[in-house]
């Protein structure tokens, strides 16, 4: 116990001595948590559009008005021909072209039918899909207004109608930030904890100080604990600061019990730091440790479920995602913060993360040889 105490004191002194590091460990997550969730927004606004109106009729004008007043679209260009509009898209000044053919109004009234062309810049497939569906629904809206103008609706519904009401639980305002902030916080805690541990032991190797530790009567587990505990504390500090920011900046208050999050975080950090240590025991230089961590961090982040739901992934990727400790924490974080899930609800995740914790740390202790 006394040995451990001295080891811990040494680690803390080393960390606190490096003022630049401390500042970065605290400042980077804070700044990023304030900025980044605002960037994550799939809701499309201000889509730049170009209009090619060959009709110049009352209806075409009404339709264009509907587009510009919808809030989704911003008229950045009016072209005479489709070709001109294409050039505008090429120059990135518009992402959507709506072409209204000549005789649009006449055809609609006389022939009961008319056609409008929507052309989208589809390099970003998802965004273009959304903007086309917005455009479509605006046209549909306009269409039903036209119908109401010309057809008197009968009193009794002639056709069967199924009314669908949609209720959005847990985030009724559909605020995307509620979804992103807990996830980004998990990533930041993960980055800090993992990177620090991964290069720590290697630094001792590189500096040669590990030999001194090796010849001392310190036991393996004491050494590992001495390395783990300081970073475990830092991880929890970053998490707590993150909660402060989510409350102050985003007004997010966990619906569930915050202590449950800390309980999960405690075990999660043990697992994560264990993995960091494992990387550390494998690597020979800090550079190497860093590249290996970079590799795992990228894969962990991409398969964490933050940017794309895990259930949409193909089988092999889902298996990888289930082997990714980060995905469990993001899951639990969202469950507790947004849905107010209780202890029994997160029990499966808790069990799995505990297995990770035991597994990684056992491997790390096993793999750390006291010989160089």
């Amino acid at each position, binding site marked *: 116990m006394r040995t451990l105490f001295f080891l811990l004191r040494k680690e803390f002194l080393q960390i606190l001595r490096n003022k630049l590091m401390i500042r970065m460990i605290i400042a980077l997550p804070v700044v990023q948590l304030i900025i980044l969730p605002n960037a994550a927004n799939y809701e499309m606004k201000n889509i730049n559009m170009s209009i090619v109106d060959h009709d110049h009729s009352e209806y075409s004008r009404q339709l264009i008005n509907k587009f510009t007043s919808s809030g989704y679209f911003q008229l950045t260009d009016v072209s005479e021909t489709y070709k001109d509009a294409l050039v505008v898209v090429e120059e990135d000044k518009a992402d959507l072209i709506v072409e209204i053919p000549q005789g649009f109004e006449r055809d609609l009234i006389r022939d009961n039918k008319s056609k409008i062309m929507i052309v989208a810049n*589809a390099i970003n*497939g998802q965004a273009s899909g959304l903007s086309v569906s917005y455009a479509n629904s605006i046209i549909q809206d306009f269409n039903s207004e036209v119908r109401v103008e010309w057809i008197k609706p009968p009193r009794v519904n002639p056709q069967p109608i199924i009314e669908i009401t949609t209720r*959005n639980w847990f985030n009724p305002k559909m605020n995307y930030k509620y979804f992103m902030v807990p996830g980004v916080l998990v990533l930041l805690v993960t980055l800090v904890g993992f990177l620090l541990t991964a290069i720590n032991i290697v630094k001792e190797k590189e500096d040669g100080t590990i030999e001194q530790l090796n010849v001392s009567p310190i036991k393996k587990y004491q050494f590992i604990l001495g390395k783990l505990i300081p970073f475990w504390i830092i991880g929890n500090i970053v998490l707590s600061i993150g909660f402060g920011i989510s409350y102050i900046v985003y007004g997010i208050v966990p619906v569930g019990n915050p202590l449950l999050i800390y309980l999960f975080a405690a075990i999660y950090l043990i697992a994560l730091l264990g993995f960091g240590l494992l990387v550390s025991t494998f690597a020979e230089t800090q550079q190497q440790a860093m590249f290996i961590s*970079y590799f795992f961090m990228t894969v962990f982040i991409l398969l964490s479920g933050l940017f794309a739901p895990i259930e949409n992934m193909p089988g092999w990727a889902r298996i990888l995602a289930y082997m990714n400790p980060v995905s469990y924490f993001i899951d639990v974080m969202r469950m507790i913060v947004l849905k107010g899930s209780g202890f029994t609800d997160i029990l499966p995740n808790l069990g799995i993360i505990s297995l990770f914790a035991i597994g990684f740390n056992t491997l790390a202790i096993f793999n750390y040889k006291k010989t160089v």
Partner: protein
Amino acid sequence: MKQLLTFIKKEFYHILRDRRSMLVLLGLPIVQLLIFGFAITTETRNCNIAILDNSKDEATQNIISRIESSTYFDIERTLSSNDQIENAFKTGRIKLAIVFQSNFQNDLLHTNKTQMQIITDASDPNQANTLANYVSAIVKDYQQELNQNKELPYTINTEIRMLYNPQLKGEYSSVPGVMGMILLLISAMMTSISIVKEKEIGTMEVLLVSPMKPSIVIISKVIPYFIVSLINVITILLISNFVFGIPIQGSFILLSLITVIYIICSLALGILISTVTSSQQAAMIISLMGLMLPVVMLSGYAFPIANMPLILQIISNVIPAKWYIIMVKDVMIKGIGLFEIWQELLIIIGMTSFFLVLSIKRFKVRLQ
């Protein structure tokens, strides 16, 4: 010149000796691209849902079997009362619940109007919207069949055309994105670390008292990483062509030119980082933590910049990856020429010079 060559050779030995790092440096772009190409899809598949059928009649059975047979949904459980809904969500396994009111078919046949409710897990608003739309579409289909597909009068039809990427493949935006991210991160990280390492071990002093000019020392450190980055670009382009089927529409030479300039920009950023830090740990925290998430999230790669709040749109301008990604999309996918992209190119060149000038100013020939 001969000195420079010997130096570059030394750096190459350093890099090549470390097999594990090499593996990561050359393998990561491949892994990342494959994950992005195949795993990160926004297509919805096999989403777990729950159904509460208070009516249990022919109409509800019909709708349920339509939902079941779609690829979007897996019915994970059938509920028997309203109280169970919340619990089904809280255990986290279902994303959507459908509630049919009692006498569903009865009302539909006799009053021509009936109701159902969709409850979504809106903690992910994006997914919630998509799923609710899918259910509505399935129900609308059913309704239309009941109406025997009568065509409505005064109909505006729309014809939709998707430019550049008619199949709406995600790879069209992820290939340029991965290029922008990998090149910046690897180059900045590698250079900053390897320069700081010399400082930390103390060999920098030896180099500085040698008759070599500091600029030569730095250049020779940077060139090997420049070559590694080029290899990465080639791998990425090969994968995008042969695995994803995205050929280069524009000029290959132009694409190479902008890529080389972008790599130089990233290396310059790495040099700048190395001048402000004194330990490998610090250099790593800055280049990994400081660059990774901002580049992913603000470069327009994961989220469209036009949707961001104004202040973030302004901040996104300082991220070199943003400009590079725009150029790669223009040249590689749209196939347009230098004339349309010279502004972006100028911005990258400007950033590069800024990083270099600042590094030279901060570079200390004397160590404390």
